[in-house]
């Protein structure tokens, strides 16, 4: 390493992080998809010339580990300055098809020194169902346009052939174009800022700092893992497919400054779309790792180096093409995180299970696309009650304001309130879920992808389980995962699960607490 001292590294690392944050802010504000602009379902990152993650501004954790593979996947295309790449193929650097990544090389006269990448959940990428989140897909091709790593721009010029083809395969092409433009714009902002930094601090110093910030994160993570008790911790949890349960089995081995996570015993990949490509599985593991160690450790290639993650080829969490995967990202990822927390709770005090689902609700037609995930009850913690109506685990997207929603879509919101009494009892109560009820003003296709409709989130240390969720059409309960046509006047109601309780109720807890 050239002589760049630790202090300079910190100064530069702070600058690199703020470049990612600025990129993310620009993307959210300039975007068109409700998913990006209102819900912030997107992430931005900087990679070094070798494709290693250097800094990231993640808004939702599910992008955390999955971004790592995005840049690696375009390196074989011989990137040059002035190129911009695009991809969404879950088996080649992506997660699920609506998440489109845009990657821009950043170059000095000496060549490419870094890559700026953004990943954002587009409102529609074609496929069978409006919104591209079908509940019953069985092959990837049904879920939308698959984009392998491709040049979106070459020499600063747009690849019109690709654009025409892609836009021809999606609903509301103008909105797609707007979102892609915002992503390319965010890459441009990152390039401006990074080159500005190079101009002020010298190329050699900036590059050395990138190496060092990765090494630093690795040191931090190793120190943090060392602080966990050595041992092997196992747990099993399940996902619901109709009346069947799919098993997620995990063992976590903590040994000195290393951790090994293995999914041996997990169900085979299924005919539906709960399958996870390996990057999504890794994201869920890194999320839990960060949460139980120190979230202050820079999220980069170094922080993930001390962890080995393996899963049998072709199992639910290491799916192979041409598996359908759309729910792997949004539902299976939640359960992987839940199973890991369950395993690690044998090593340290951790909260009871929260809602464990994103309650994905998609309504759409040729005229509109509305997608939303709905918060629920958090598991009670060892020292306090769980929060109500909140997003947990792998997502943290905002809700769509009712006033924005009703101005934009032919929908009327009938209620959005807590689902009282849904949290599990215990010394500390689980948080309540919510009830969100929408009336359609025009016919539309509905896709609901939700879990924990039969099994409620488990309590911890003797606390009771939370109430499972319910999906209702005109007051009649339907399955957790459904795709169907609705008429004007129909009402969709989603009741989200309550969180598990913590601790047995002791007699002294029965004295009413001050409200």
């Amino acid at each position, binding site marked *: 390493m050239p002589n760049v001292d630790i202090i300079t590294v910190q100064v530069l690392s702070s600058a690199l992080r703020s470049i990612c944050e600025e990129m993310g802010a620009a993307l959210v504000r300039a975007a068109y998809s409700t998913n990006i602009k209102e819900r912030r379902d997107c992430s931005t990152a900087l990679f070094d010339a070798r494709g290693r993650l250097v800094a990231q501004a993640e808004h939702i954790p599910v992008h955390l580990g999955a971004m790592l593979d995005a840049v690696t996947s375009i390196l074989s295309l011989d990137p040059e300055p002035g190129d911009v790449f695009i991809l969404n193929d879950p088996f080649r650097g992506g997660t699920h098809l609506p998440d489109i990544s845009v990657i821009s090389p950043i170059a000095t006269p000496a060549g490419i020194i870094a890559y700026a990448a953004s990943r954002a959940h587009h409102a529609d990428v074609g496929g069978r169902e409006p919104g591209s989140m079908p509940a019953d897909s069985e092959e990837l091709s049904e879920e939308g346009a698959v984009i392998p790593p491709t040049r979106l721009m070459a020499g600063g010029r747009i690849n019109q052939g690709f654009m025409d083809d892609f836009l021809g395969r999606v609903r509301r092409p103008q909105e797609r174009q707007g979102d892609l433009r915002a992503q390319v714009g965010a890459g441009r902002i990152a390039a401006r800022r990074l080159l500005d930094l190079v101009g002020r601090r010298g190329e050699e110093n900036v590059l050395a700092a990138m190496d060092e910030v990765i090494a630093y994160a690795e040191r931090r993570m190793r120190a*943090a893992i060392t602080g966990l008790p050595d041992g092997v911790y196992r747990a099993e949890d399940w996902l619901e497919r109709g009346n069947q349960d799919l098993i997620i089995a995990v063992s976590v081995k903590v040994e000195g400054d290393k951790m090994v996570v293995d999914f041996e015993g997990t169900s085979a990949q299924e005919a539906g779309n709960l399958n996870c490509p390996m990057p999504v599985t890794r994201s869920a593991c890194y999320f839990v790792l*960060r949460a139980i160690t120190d979230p202050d*450790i820079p999220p980069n290639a170094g922080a993930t180096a001390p962890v080995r993650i393996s899963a049998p080829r072709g199992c639910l969490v290491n799916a192979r093409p041409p598996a359908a995967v759309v729910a792997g990202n949004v539902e299976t990822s939640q359960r992987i995180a839940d199973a890991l927390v369950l395993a690690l709770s044998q090593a340290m005090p951790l909260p009871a299970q929260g809602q464990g689902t994103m309650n994905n609700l998609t309504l759409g037609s040729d005229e509109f696309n509305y997608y939303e995930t709905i918060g629920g009850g958090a598991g009670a913690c060892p020292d306090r009650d769980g929060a109500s109506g909140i997003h947990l685990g792998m997502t943290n997207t905002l809700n769509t304001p009712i*006033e924005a929603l009703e101005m934009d879509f032919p929908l009327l919101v009938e209620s*959005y309130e807590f689902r009282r009494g849904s949290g599990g009892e215990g010394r500390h109560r689980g948080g309540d879920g*919510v009830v969100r009820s929408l009336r359609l003003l025009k016919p539309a296709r509905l896709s609901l992808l939700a879990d924990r409709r039969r099994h409620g989130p488990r309590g911890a240390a003797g606390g009771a389980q939370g109430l499972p969720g319910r999906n209702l059409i005109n007051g009649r309960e339907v399955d957790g995962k459904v795709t169907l046509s609705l008429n004007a006047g129909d009402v969709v109601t989603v009741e989200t699960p309550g969180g598990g309780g913590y601790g047995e109720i002791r007699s002294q807890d029965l004295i009413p607490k001050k409200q």
Partner: protein
Amino acid sequence: MGATTPLLLGVDVGGTFTDAVLVSNGSLFRAKVPTTVDQSLAVVEASRKVIEMSGAAAAQVSYFAHGMTTATNALLERKGARTASISTWGFRDILEIGRQDRPRLYDLCPSRPEPLVPRELRLAARERVGPVGETLPLEAEEVKRVVDRLRRLKPEAVAICLLFSFLDPAHELRLGEVLARELPEVHVSMSSAVLPQFREYERFSTTAVDAYLTPVVARYLMTLGERVRTAGLPEPAIMQSSGGVMPLGQAAASAAPLLLSGPAAGVVGSIYGGGRSGIDDLIAFDMGGTSTDVSLVRGGAAQTTSEREIGGQPVALPMVDIHTIGAGGGSIAWIDPGGALRVGPESAGAEPGPACYGRGGEQATVSDANYLLGYLGEKLGGADGLALQREPARKALGRLAAELGLELEETALGIRRVVGAEMVKALRVISVERGHDPRMFVLVAFGGAGPMHGADLAEELDIERVMVPDSCGVLSALGMVVGDERRDWVQTVYAAEGWDEQSLAGSLARMEAAHAAETVGAVLERRADMRYRGQSHELTVEVGERMSRDELVRAFEHEHEKAYGYTAAEEDVELVNIRLTALRPLVPVRIGDAGRERKSARGPARGTADGREQTSRDRSAPGSRSAFFDGEWVQADIWRRGQIGATRVRGPAIIEEDEATTVVPPGWECSLDEAGNLWLETHKLERSDA
């Protein structure tokens, strides 16, 4: 103000001290007294003291403006009124659900700040308005049922928050009227009056904050009004978060606009200080003991934002865009498990204070680093101030140095650089990230620690000039008396079918007519929030006289390119909100330089080809001490601020005054201009570019 000399009084209440300034006949008097629990006592005491110093009488004070922390404290400490809310049926929990996100991404036990209105005080009324108007009427019986329930709950305040009330406020108005009649002692805030803007959660939250704070603030202002009257002073105007003042009566009726009363005044003070040297593009950098406030000023106007959370509650009213970070002179340095040096957010506070205070503090702080490097003198706050102690500071820093494997001096410099990196980040947030090039601005450094770090931060940002304003220790109090009177209104006018010049002009005219009574004699500013169709975040654009639609769209596109890196000519541009600001400028305040020519409209003369010769010292420095710069110990000149006169001081030098210390590093020069402002300038940056 006629033939008599105006006597202007400004009082700023801070956490520790209450500062007062009095401007009389071109002279400035200052006083500081400890802040009291009943803040109005200290306000009156500080006023009495400063008036006495000037030799005037209370009755001669012609104008009095005041900034306070009552609203902020009541919100942060949760000591507001018992507040109930009325929402649309089916939506009573919106205040608690918020946007359904958790504040910290990697939190397995997420918690949110408690809502200001607990669930048992959240009521719902059967009624509904949608995007095209009423869909369910609000019946008289329903009003009665809700009011009866409220009566039993005995709230001090009620927030009325109904869906789509920004479009049609009739239901809110009806509930408000009945409440005023039936429960006249209860304060009522209506969302359609507080913030008629779409996005229900942010509107409701702002309204709940207003309801929660107004009774408390009104009580304080009434007490203050009485004490002030007894003391023979005029009724004070109250500083708002927007940087303008409003009459006491209006402030007592709606408190949400008062949350950043004090910090906003600091920005106004820096604008005033800059203006006196002809500078109107500046970055205000106020570094105190535990926190630092930064803000950007362009064309003499503070930048405002309407997207802020205070105490975890979104308040979507226009506020001076102040970015606050939890690091200052008292912040503690530590080493994290990865071996990196970190500073803050923990602070040594006033007790025990930094190790060098010798009061038992054992952890190294930024002030200890500054002291060991020779930047801070042996005494704080002038001749009779606290004597600093070397040994405890050396011990505290020595521990860190040993762990880092660095020399003591390198460690001290490291602390400065690490805290500096945080400051630079904050400065970038309000400049680069908002599309402003910091190099075009002067850094105005104030607060106890600001002038010690100003030059270093400027170098990081390629800024060539730093100003340390006159009265840098009481700049907020000074800001009170130089702030304009200001009111702000916003109205959502979004229409799916689009807009043109006529519809915009019509909406603006209606808005102006609605507030005509409050804007008599005021200068009006009009702005529009715009976006591309399909986006949902807006950019705010000034609406000039008779601006065509094309001109407005071009102004929007200009802002868009700067902020997001592209424009989209073929996209339709939507109009979402209109904003009206009424300003009543005060009589210009003149201090010290009354009638004198300024040397230059752009601050002091810049060095020219013969600039190096001009900087030769015409007087030798009154003192010197050993200080660490550029990797070695050197003898730095020590000046008292008052002694500089026309001398151009070349760094390394240190300039001391009672309330602050200014560091002039090698490669920087320092001079005092005729307005009393201190200037630090460098040619280093140009050279390094060459």
